[in-house]
């Protein structure tokens, strides 16, 4: 609440300011020919209107509250010489620029736009191409990264950077961005109270979204598709993940989502489709999985190591090669009222709930964990027979791992 109020104040302040703030026009034929020059002569709260054209500039330092506004996407070409824009002042807006050729370095994380220790920033409608790091927020709070398009051409992880990176930054909104072809689409480290909505992070080398040591964050309605390894959420607490789509993350260590040392999270209404592993869970506790759809994944949920008191309710498990895989005989997680397309039971009392419990862990998933080559025997009659006998009397799989109340129809 306070957060929004503060925003409103900032906005009013800006509008008020604009009454006496002036606009400086920059264009190749104008009096002010370069952006650097423009920034230099601008006063606080001025707007630098950058007209269409190509500006070969880098190391632009924005050290006063002001607006950099591009008209018809002027191009700022860094010619691979280093960082392009560095913001070190509060209340800076960057809008409508096309930035290309950020310098690549093995020692310095050059970014197209870096915000350092500043507040109330707004970066929007910016297009970044041929970049190293895209938008880098460093110890900067209460800002917004909105509707930007970041298109990288990363080939190797060691010499590529992240699209949007947040480091020790809190209360930031990252909305409606499109990030592709970088190392990590969106990367968060030590950043709390972040909201990430409606972004599209696709075809990135490593993760579409990557959390490390960041708590109380929310991400909703994002799409993560065809990323090298999917989305990784690690060492973080109280994350809410709602309505996101994780699709076609294929490969040996690929998953829709990786949860590692995550506690007290909520995963609701997400869609995991055609991933090698839908969700890979390691050492994560007290997580609620509700109303998610797991469709056509290799493994819908793979549980490794100790995971306690998680609950899976009202999820749809549709046509996955394996629904749940465990690597131990212990189970402390609850599965209830899920819909399993592999369920073959019946519902004689017509209450919409199957009369026989469903066992989501197959013996074959154990065998595949042990000897991965056996995957080629998937769906063979022999395996069906073996799975059936395990179902009748569990020897290798946790015998209390069952959905005692499986739904007969898909959960809405």
């Amino acid at each position, binding site marked *: 609440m306070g957060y929004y109020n503060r925003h409103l104040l900032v906005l009013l302040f800006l509008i008020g300011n604009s009454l006496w703030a002036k606009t400086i026009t920059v264009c190749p034929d104008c009096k002010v020919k370069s952006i650097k020059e423009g920034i230099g002569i601008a006063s606080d709260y001025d707007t630098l209107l950058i007209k269409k054209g190509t500006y070969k500039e880098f190391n632009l330092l924005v050290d006063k509250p002001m607006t950099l506004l591009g008209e018809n996407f002027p191009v700022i070409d860094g010619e691979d010489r280093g960082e392009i824009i560095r913001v070190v002042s509060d209340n800076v807006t960057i809008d409508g620029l096309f930035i290309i050729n950020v310098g690549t370095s093995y020692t310095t994380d050059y970014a197209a736009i870096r915000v350092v220790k500043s507040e109330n920033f707004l970066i929007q409608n910016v297009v970044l191409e041929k970049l190293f790091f895209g938008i880098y927020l460093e110890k900067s709070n209460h800002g917004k990264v909105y509707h930007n398009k970041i298109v990288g051409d990363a080939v190797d992880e060691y010499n590529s950077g992240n699209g949007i990176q947040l480091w020790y930054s809190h209360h930031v909104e990252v909305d409606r961005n499109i990030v592709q072809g970088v190392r990590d689409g969106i990367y968060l480290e030590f950043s709390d109270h972040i909201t990430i909505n409606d972004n599209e992070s696709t075809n990135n080398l490593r993760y579409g979204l990557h959390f490390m040591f960041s708590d109380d964050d929310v991400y909703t309605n994002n799409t993560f598709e065809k990323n090298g390894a999917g989305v990784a959420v690690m060492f973080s607490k109280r994350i809410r993940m709602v309505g996101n789509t994780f699709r076609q993350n294929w490969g040996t260590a690929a998953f829709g989502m990786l949860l590692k040392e995550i506690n007290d999270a909520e995963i609701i209404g997400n869609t995991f489709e055609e991933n090698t592993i839908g969700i890979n869970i390691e050492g994560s506790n007290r997580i609620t999985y509700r109303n998610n759809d797991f469709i056509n994944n290799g493994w819908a949920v793979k549980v490794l190591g100790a995971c306690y008191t998680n609950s899976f309710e009202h999820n749809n498990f549709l*046509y996955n090669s394996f629904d749940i895989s465990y690597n131990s005989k212990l189970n402390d997680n609850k599965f209830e009222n899920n819909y399993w397309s592999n369920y073959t039971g019946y519902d004689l009392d017509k209450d919409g709930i199957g009369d026989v419990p469903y066992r989501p862990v197959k013996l074959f998933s154990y065998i595949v964990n042990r000897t991965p080559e*056996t995957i080629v025997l998937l769906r063979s009659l022999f395996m069906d027979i073996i799975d059936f006998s395990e179902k009748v009397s569990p020897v290798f799989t946790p015998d209390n791992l069952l959905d005692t109340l499986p739904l007969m129809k898909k959960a809405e």
Partner: protein
Amino acid sequence: MLKILKYSFYDLMRSRWSYVYFLFYLALGFVLLFLNQDLSKAVITLMNVIIVLVPLISTIFGVMYFYNSKEFTELLLAQPLKRTSIFLGQYLGVAGSLTLSLVLGLGIPFVLYGLFRSDAIWDFSLLLVTGAFLTMIFTALAFNIALSNENKIKGFGYAVLMWLFLAVIYDGLFLLSLIIFEEYPLDSFSLAATTFNPIDLSRTLILLKLDISALLGYTGAVFKSYFGTNLGLFVSLGMLVLWTILPVWRLAYKSKRKDF
């Protein structure tokens, strides 16, 4: 040959068994769709049916037809006809009518339930193509067994054993060997082993469609290029063609040398 094919086919089209087979598939298709109302799920269930039942039915039907048409065959042998034409004609007649029963029996209910408007159409078509291949292969194998065994009971026995071996026992041995030798790199071996069994080959083809997400999770580079590119598809289809041609070729070869 075409004439024989025509008459065998004609003969089969009026035989009760073709209809039983056709109606079986028709009923299966309708029941599956009626119970599920979901094309994707029905396709998965159908896969199991196709991999297990199609070979069994083709085997039994093939052996049965061969023994039952012994007199007809002898009648034809005395006619001015090439031997290979007679046998290949009969083979194609049986395999063709079985395939037709399969395709129509399953196709009609699925089309009525809106297959053309569904994205399951490719999975379904692949299923039918695989089913057709399995029919051709197992009918040919059955004909070979029947041709080599005068004794009906023995022929039936061998045919059913062959089915049992390829459908179940082979995979059991396969799994066992994978587990015993798990210390060694096994990806090439496991891929090769699938190609020596037409049922496994067909399964691979279907896995490529239904379970590609899981298949791509395995580390081996050979696996990756096999399943990740079109290589797996082409190799499997090629091997299926080979599996069809070889028994048919042996049928033609043996039939030329057999006494009646």
